[in-house]
């Protein structure tokens, strides 16, 4: 039993984990969100009828228990004086803006907050820009109406709603694990290359080559899936984003590994040179993917000096799907590499017999 687990079980574990990540990644709904609203701006003193379009909301079902606020600076809130529900996804909230705003600036930007027991609390930052001609924060007497209290939690198992991403947030379980699996497969590859350089066993070289092939396939899948995702969220498949450029270079460095391999006839020379090159390629991969993108601004989350994945980008529900996906794809990557390596080993044995 233990033997089976060690030799075969991890392959099935990989399949199960990837299956789990596909099912969970597609089935768990998004949290409610605010996908559109008009108007975008108003003048102080206006009465604003804000048309709100919700996403995954249940306005009609919640009806009487719906509440809405405009929020400034976390502390000052202005409750809607009237909420007219049109259907589950549309409502009109009326706000009576005061003639003076408690800020020293001419423009204040308000966050829209909608709360109901079914969907929980839903936020849209920078929902309404309010202009004022007279700036007199001292003269303001704020009458915000009912306070923002007793907010509801909403359904427990949801993925965050992000206005730019919407449902494509699910790509976190398909696009990102490609890169994580690629790195983990390349780590395996460089370990075998170093082992080859130390012990000169041909099987180590064959394993390193097989893992590198799989790593490149995973990297290319990461690149192409990223281009599709970017087209619909960043507007273009290739924005010359630092991480896009650097990963493309990293993949070219790894492709050169095979150019090198196939240009060398002698088996021993080929193994030694490609093992040394693989160590170099891995040494280039680390700064290209982990260091340079953080030194400058990037469209990718977690760059420009930030930690790789912050809680803003990956909440606890997402971790529940994301990490199994990474482990699953890595195991599948090693499995496919092993198949390649076994074919290679048989070929070599045949060559030796002849």
């Amino acid at each position, binding site marked *: 039993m233990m033997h089976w687990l060690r030799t075969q079980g991890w392959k099935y574990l990989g399949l199960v984990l990837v299956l789990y990540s*596909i099912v969970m990644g*597609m089935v768990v709904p*998004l949290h409610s969100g605010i996908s559109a609203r008009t108007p975008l701006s108003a003048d102080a003193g206006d009465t604003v009828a804000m048309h709100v379009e919700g*996403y995954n909301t249940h306005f009609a079902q919640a009806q009487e228990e719906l509440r809405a606020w405009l929020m400034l600076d976390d502390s000052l809130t202005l409750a809607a004086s009237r909420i007219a529900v049109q259907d589950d996804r549309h409502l009109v909230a009326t706000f009576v803006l005061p003639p003076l705003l408690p800020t020293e600036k001419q423009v204040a930007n308000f966050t829209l907050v909608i709360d109901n027991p079914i969907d929980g609390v839903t936020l849209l930052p920078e929902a309404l820009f309010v202009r004022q001609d007279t700036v007199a924060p001292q003269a303001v007497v704020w009458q915000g109406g009912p306070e923002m209290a007793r907010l509801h939690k909403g359904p427990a198992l949801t993925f965050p709603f992000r206005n730019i*991403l*919407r*449902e*494509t947030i*699910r*790509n976190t379980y*398909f*696009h990102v694990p*490609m890169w994580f699996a690629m790195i983990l497969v390349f780590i395996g590859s460089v370990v075998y290359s170093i082992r080859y350089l130390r012990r000169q066993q041909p099987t180590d070289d064959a394993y390193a080559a097989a893992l590198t*092939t*799989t790593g*490149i*396939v995973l990297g*290319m*899948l990461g690149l*192409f*899936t990223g*281009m*599709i*995702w970017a*087209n*619909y969220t960043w507007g*273009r*498949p290739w924005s010359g984003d630092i991480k896009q450029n650097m990963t493309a270079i990293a993949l070219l460095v790894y*492709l050169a590994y*095979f*150019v090198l391999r*196939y240009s060398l006839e002698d088996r021993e020379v080929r193994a030694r040179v490609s093992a040394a090159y693989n160590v170099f390629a891995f040494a280039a991969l680390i700064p290209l993917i982990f260091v340079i993108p953080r030194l400058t601004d990037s469209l990718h989350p977690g760059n420009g000096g930030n930690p790789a994945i912050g809680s803003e980008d990956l909440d606890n529900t997402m971790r529940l799907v994301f990490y199994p996906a990474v482990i699953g794809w890595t195991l599948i990557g090693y499995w*496919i590499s092993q*198949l*390649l390596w076994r*074919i290679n080993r*048989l*070929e070599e044995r*045949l060559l030796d*017999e*002849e």
Partner: protein
Amino acid sequence: MKLHLAASLVFLLLPLASAWSQSEQTDFLRQTGMIYVVVAVMAVIFVGIGIYLIYIDRKLTRLENQISDHDQNG
């Protein structure tokens, strides 16, 4: 052989990506919260793994032929 695999991946997927990039704001993939972008991403992964499987399959076929040749000669 491995470079063939790489090239075929590029040539298969690049036109798809560029076709999508030229489409309208209100195209099919943008409907219902852009869920079809996720479907497209999953399809690309499936196609990629599929091409890789075909490559491994051909390698194995070549080996089988070599073995049968070897058995006939030996």
